């Protein structure tokens, strides 16, 4: 059982874009107990659609299980009997932290499209305020999968003395052109929805559900592997025969529609746009002539990097870029390339070997 918390920061935050947030709120949850030395805190960073509800369930909604509940809890690989774990909803999010759905104090209306673009660097700056608020000088570890892994990398660069271990799973040092291309298609799906209204759909009392639904459908294709999709759905027909219509013929169509509809009901379109741009912009080597090793020279943390064999969104080769850049800098690093059929989404699953290596690494962390 867990209860979400909120904290309000009154001091303004200058964002990477130059825009200024006059203050902000973060929604977060904690699991386990911060020890007297304050040395056992682990920050979990979420990916595109996640939030601060990492583990456990809410008293009033026992069906709402945290997104990484298979990993985080008493006796689980990230053992909350040992660690004090913090989940946080990123700035610009739609699950309680200040974002496009929040009221803009300057207008008294929802920010909507006026919410400034935030970046991975801005999220980490906001996380650091949460760490200060919780009395955590140094994280034992900052960890995340996918976009969450990028935040762990950024933590090691922005605050090298405040993070002892970076756990970077199914991630990449920056997006490829193909990754950005998929994001752009998703964004155009949202922006071209007639209900988008330039991002001020809330003022019109609508949501661009069709666009969001399409964006999620596209995303889902990239989260799964071809082999797993083939195994799970193949060419199975919904009605046992071809319908010669544009309704659902194949089960995979039904699956994507279901996932899209579900997502469009709870996720905010502006948050989706902002988050995909944050992904696109993340590139620590950008100001180092594309030299990732030079960019990572500041890091002092030990690293755990893991990738999944069938992940084509952030393939193992992308993780190896991080690993070899760390080797160049003589940082301690463990790299596991996990044989798992489930594509990018593998990082959310409780694959036995994946959890065993993660458990073993986390057990080695001194507190």
């Amino acid at each position, binding site marked *: 059982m867990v209860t979400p918390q909120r904290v309000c920061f009154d001091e303004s935050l200058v964002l990477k874009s130059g825009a200024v947030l006059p203050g902000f709120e973060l929604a977060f949850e904690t699991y386990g107990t911060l020890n007297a030395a304050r040395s056992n805190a682990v920050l979990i960073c979420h990916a595109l659609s996640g939030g601060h509800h990492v583990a456990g369930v809410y008293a009033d909604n026992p069906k709402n299980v945290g997104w990484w509940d298979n990993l985080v809890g008493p006796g689980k690989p990230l053992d909350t009997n040992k660690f004090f774990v913090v989940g946080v909803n990123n700035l610009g999010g739609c699950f309680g932290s200040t974002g496009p759905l929040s009221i803009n104090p300057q207008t008294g209306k929802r920010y909507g499209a006026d919410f400034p673009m935030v970046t991975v660097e801005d999220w980490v700056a906001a996380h650091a305020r949460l760490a200060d608020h919780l009395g955590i000088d140094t994280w034992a570890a900052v960890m995340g999968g996918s976009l969450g892994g990028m935040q762990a990398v950024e933590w090691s660069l922005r605050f090298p003395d405040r993070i002892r271990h970076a756990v970077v799973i199914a991630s990449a040092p920056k997006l490829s052109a193909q990754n950005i291309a998929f994001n752009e298609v998703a964004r155009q799906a949202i922006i071209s929805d007639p209900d988008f209204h330039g991002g001020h759909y809330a003022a019109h009392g609508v949501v661009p559900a069709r666009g969001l639904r399409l964006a999620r459908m596209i995303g889902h294709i990239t989260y799964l592997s071809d082999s797993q999709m083939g195994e799970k759905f193949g060419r199975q027909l919904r009605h046992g025969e071809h319908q010669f219509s544009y309704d659902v013929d194949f089960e995979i169509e039904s699956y994507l529609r279901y996932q899209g509809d579900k997502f469009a009901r709870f996720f905010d379109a502006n948050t989706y746009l902002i988050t995909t741009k944050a992904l696109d912009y993340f590139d620590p080597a950008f100001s180092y002539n594309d030299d990732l090793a030079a960019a990572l020279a500041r890091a002092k943390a030990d690293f755990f990097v893991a990738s999944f064999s069938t992940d084509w969104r952030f393939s193992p080769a992308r993780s190896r870029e991080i690993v070899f850049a760390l080797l*160049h800098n003589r940082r301690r690093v*463990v790299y596991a390339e996990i044989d798992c059929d489930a594509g990018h989404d593998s990082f959310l699953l409780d694959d036995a070997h994946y959890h065993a290596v993660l458990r073993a690494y986390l057990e080695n962390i001194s507190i």
Partner: protein
Amino acid sequence: MNFTAKERERFDFAVIAHWIPHGERVLDLGCGDGKLLRYLRETKGIAGYGVEIDPASVLGCIRNNVDVIQIDIEGGLSGFEDGSFNHVIISQALQAMHATERILSEMLRVAEEAVVSFPNFAYCANRAAIAAGHMPVSEDLPYEWYETPNVRFFTIVDFEALCTKLGITIRERLAFDDAGQIVTDDPNLNGSLAFYRLGRAS
């Protein structure tokens, strides 16, 4: 005299550790569960990385708190920079890899010196087994032919010829019989396990 498995392992480790100066940067290829690197860390204060492809061994490394990188080195050591290690070790793993020449050459690209150990197929007991009509199974070649991970079967003489071909200098060689006694007389006949310190020809 026969070693227990643990004594044998310690014996191998001690031979290698003898050649590794304190505080070095060491890369161990085909590092298994990382026990050698752990031993070198504990006895020589080295900073080491292991390279391993087998998932269970990778897990073993992490449990031994050894930094391991799970990649397949059959494709070479690209990613590892020139001269980035003092020593690179391949301990009783070369015989289980296909890309023998490439791996040996690459080892001396990424490190100043290489340490290689392997079972000598021409050891007298192995010759006797062949003469009696069987593939050898011994202390240092402990597998039946149908389950062995080894893919390259070679001798001390063969290995040294390959080193010559690749322009690799043999700086030191030690050979031991299956009781762990050092062998000086005809090592290709009397040595069961061979250890080398290798460098680039100057």
